[in-house]
């Protein structure tokens, strides 16, 4: 479309739409700016409801309060362990599994595909899953968290669909050279599927980084909890703890500024990788037009 060909009405319409999009964008961004402003404000200013856009009585006291806590750093480290370990574990299951399911030679292929797809439609639910984890002795286990959430039907089907779309001739050429299935997967399919694998890696990383519910339910030791659970503990204790609020009323930090500071600390890594991952997820979500 060309701006010069637009009628006056079209131009008016385009300007209105641009303004509306701008407003929605600002509305999306604003809560983050607000939280950042609160985190750098004094507790007193925050309590008085003075913070709107920029820090009031700028201070880093809230960050000092957080960053000296050993538990904060342990949970931060744990989140990295869960994210990296979990993503690697996921790929170790998903890539070979999706390859096998995409092979026409596989006997029972329809059955296995249904076996996997069925879990997208029917799920036993929280309680049987929890009791199963207990029976498997995987409560309060870091390895349990990494293993038990490694695979899901959606990611396997997504990658399987991608593998199925690879022309037969690529595989045949490799077979001519005497390649076996492992070599075909490693040397032909994986290099050809980089965008799909990158997408799945991204999904895994995001899910792991943000995962909180099962970590909260399954993990008891302070030493093992990820950042999200630490954040929740802090949120809960700070908002319940009136004493904290009262004693800190005149102080440089308050429950709210500390909360905001933790939020900022846990968003920063996401913001750092976000521009890098953005080019993948638009493609990825479209690959995910799952057909079973």
């Amino acid at each position, binding site marked *: 479309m060309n701006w010069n060909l637009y009628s006056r009405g079209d131009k008016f319409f385009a300007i209105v739409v641009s303004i509306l999009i701008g407003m929605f964008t600002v509305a999306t961004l604003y809560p983050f700016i607000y939280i950042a402003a609160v985190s750098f404000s004094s507790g007193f200013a925050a309590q008085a409801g003075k913070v709107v856009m920029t820090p009031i009585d700028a201070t880093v006291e809230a960050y000092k309060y957080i960053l000296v806590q050993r538990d904060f750093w342990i949970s931060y480290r744990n989140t990295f362990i869960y994210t990296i370990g979990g993503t690697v574990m996921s790929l170790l299951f998903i890539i070979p599994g999706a*390859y096998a399911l995409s092979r026409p030679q596989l006997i029972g292929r329809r059955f296995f595909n249904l076996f996997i797809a069925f879990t997208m439609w029917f799920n036993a639910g929280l309680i049987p899953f929890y009791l199963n984890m207990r029976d498997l002795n995987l409560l309060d286990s870091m390895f349990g968290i990494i293993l038990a959430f490694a695979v899901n039907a959606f990611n396997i089907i997504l990658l399987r669909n991608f593998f199925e779309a690879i022309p037969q001739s690529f595989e045949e050429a490799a077979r001519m050279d005497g390649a076996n*299935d492992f070599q075909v997967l490693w040397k032909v399919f994986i290099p050809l599927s980089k965008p799909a694998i990158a997408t799945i890696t991204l999904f895994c990383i995001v899910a792991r980084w943000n995962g909180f519910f099962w970590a909260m339910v399954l993990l008891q030791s302070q030493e093992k909890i990820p950042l999200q659970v630490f954040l929740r503990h802090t949120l809960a204790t700070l908002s319940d703890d009136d004493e904290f609020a009262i004693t800190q009323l005149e102080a440089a930090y308050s429950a709210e500024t500390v909360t905001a500071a933790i*939020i900022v600390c846990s968003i920063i890594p996401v913001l750092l990788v976000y521009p890098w991952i953005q080019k993948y997820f638009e493609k990825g979500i479209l690959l995910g037009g799952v057909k079973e």
Partner: protein
Amino acid sequence: MTSGSENKRSQNIPVAKRKRSLKSRLQWFADHVRNHWQIYLMLLPTIVWFMVFLYKPMYGLQIAFKDYSIFRGVANSPWVGWEHFQALFSNDQFIRAVSNTIKISALNLLFGFPAPIILALMFNEILHATYKRTAQTIVYLPHFISSVIIAGIVITAFSPSVGIVNTILGWFGIDSIYFLTKPEWFRPIFVGTGIWQEAGFGSIVFLAAIAGVSPSLYESAVVDGASRWQMMWRITLPSILPTIIIMLIIRIGNIMEVSFELIILLYQPATYSTADVVNTFVFRQGLQNGQYDFAAAAGLFNAVVAFVLVMIANTLARRYSRTSLW
């Protein structure tokens, strides 16, 4: 399977004549395994994982019909029939949770479903590439933020003392409201948060559908002197209608799925009356109060209803996409 010519020949022979003796079938199977054992080896870990982590809990679902005790285990606990279900349906909290699930989903559908479509239509009207790109990058972002952080932001923003919402209300002389303790405010806040978090990301699917609309339609509309507004209504929207209908069917199929993680983080006893959904009810009764069998029954009810809805939705979506393609 051994050579290309044999394959071709077997395809030309009618099925009835292709029946082979047991011996030759065993021979074929042995060859098959010798040639292709690697793909079975690759599949094995995934299948075992699904059995252990997803199918074994389905076996464990039988506790919904048992008087489960931790010490006896799943298999040895005595059967009690439909007792837990009878208790469920005479439990006011459970009935309330089912009703809340449907109400929250309905609100999500009403307000959350159109939002990404409108957003996609608007993005499509923006000519300035950098402006569009930047806006898209920003509105996709909240999708990647964890529900704990979202909850932290909501709690801070709506707090009676520090919260920006009450600060703004204060400018208009309105007394501060403790939003998160008010049952009537829970659903608007929850649904609004959902739109803020997901509308941008949800627009990707519709933008892709818009990208697939044939440019010739717009070209001839320009020749006919149509305005952009008319093109949006008469060309873009009808062209992406199949995508909209498919997405709508999928959404309706998932009506029992409410993002309960965020509810657990945002609700409190004061707001249970409007906020408690089936999954949060299961969480409290089962994982917090230890009534595993009763909670599993509630979960099973939810799963069965969800399964039926998803199956109906899948069938409708398939039938619809078949008819809309031709």
